[in-house]
């Protein structure tokens, strides 16, 4: 019946800690390799092949790291909210771990977006920072990430910590449309989006390095997320046989012990 569907069987197995640990261990080197190739190509193209912007000049080259970081900062938070919802409704432990493991990566991309935006703002606007709606809402996103990490580490029991953090993350989702539409809702110094579903106002010679770096950032997130999730699984299951079998094979007993 439905349980024999290979896709369902695959996802069911993926929920098992030892199985996830084994599969992710094989995936991680590939994700890092793809990230390195794409990031090298996108950075070279953005720095040396793409033309300077007709208005902003050479400083527009900062866009090739700023924009992918800003996109990822929002995408990771949205994924955290989805995983938090799954964790709250279906109590899937792997979703809890994936959610909290995403937080430091999301915070890192938010820091990069804020720092590179600031470094772009100095030559373009004449200032490193303004309390503009886009910049302020992105800073609030950083505080949400830090708040989620702080709340999770403040509660000793991992599953209670994950539930509390999931709630906080879900409440914070309100900030995502605020960030996205801030440039339309308010009169901001930050420019409106150049790329959208209705088309884009950016030349292909500048669009391609941007899209390559944005894709590279997603592979970075995937590799880093799996690495962090494996670490948390190992820490939480440190007394279970599957972890002991991996670390000290001759001391372990059976290979079961994964839960969902």
């Amino acid at each position, binding site marked *: 019946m439905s349980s024999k569907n290979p896709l369902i069987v695959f996802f069911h197995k993926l929920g098992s800690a030892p199985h996830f640990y084994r599969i992710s261990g094989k995936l991680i080197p590939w994700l890092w390799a793809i990230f390195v190739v794409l990031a090298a190509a996108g950075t070279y193209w953005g720095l040396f092949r793409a033309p300077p912007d007709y208005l902003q000049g050479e400083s527009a080259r900062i866009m090739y790291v700023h924009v992918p970081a800003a996109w990822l900062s929002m995408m990771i938070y949205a994924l955290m909210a989805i995983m938090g919802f799954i964790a709250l409704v279906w109590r899937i432990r792997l979703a809890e771990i994936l959610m909290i493991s995403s937080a430091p990566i999301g915070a*890192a991309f938010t820091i*990069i977006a804020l*720092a590179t935006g600031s470094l772009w703002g100095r030559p373009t606007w004449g200032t490193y920072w303004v309390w503009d709606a886009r910049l302020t809402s992105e800073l609030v996103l950083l505080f949400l990430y830090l708040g989620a990490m702080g709340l999770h580490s403040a509660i000793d029991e991992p599953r209670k910590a994950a539930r509390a953090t999931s709630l906080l993350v879900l409440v914070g989702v309100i900030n995502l449309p605020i960030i996205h539409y801030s440039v339309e809702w308010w009169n901001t110094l930050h420019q409106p989006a150049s790329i959208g579903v209705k088309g884009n106002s950016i030349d292909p010679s500048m669009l391609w390095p941007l899209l390559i770096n944005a894709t590279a950032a997603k592979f970075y997130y995937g590799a*880093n997320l799996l690495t962090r999730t494996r670490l948390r699984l190992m820490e939480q299951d440190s007394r279970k046989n599957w972890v002991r079998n991996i670390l000290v094979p001759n001391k372990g007993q059976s290979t079961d012990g994964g839960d969902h």
Partner: protein
Amino acid sequence: MFEHSVYIAAAYSVTTLVLAWCALAPVLRAKKVRSQIARVVTRTGVDNKQ
């Protein structure tokens, strides 16, 4: 050199540093955790699965 090259270099350096730190931190911690667990298992050798 580019015009505003200082800002461009700073932006790419910040990005590289933050991404490198964020990628290395869990690897270093995993190394520590692995050796801690392995030490406990080797010392006790007990199967106390929970």
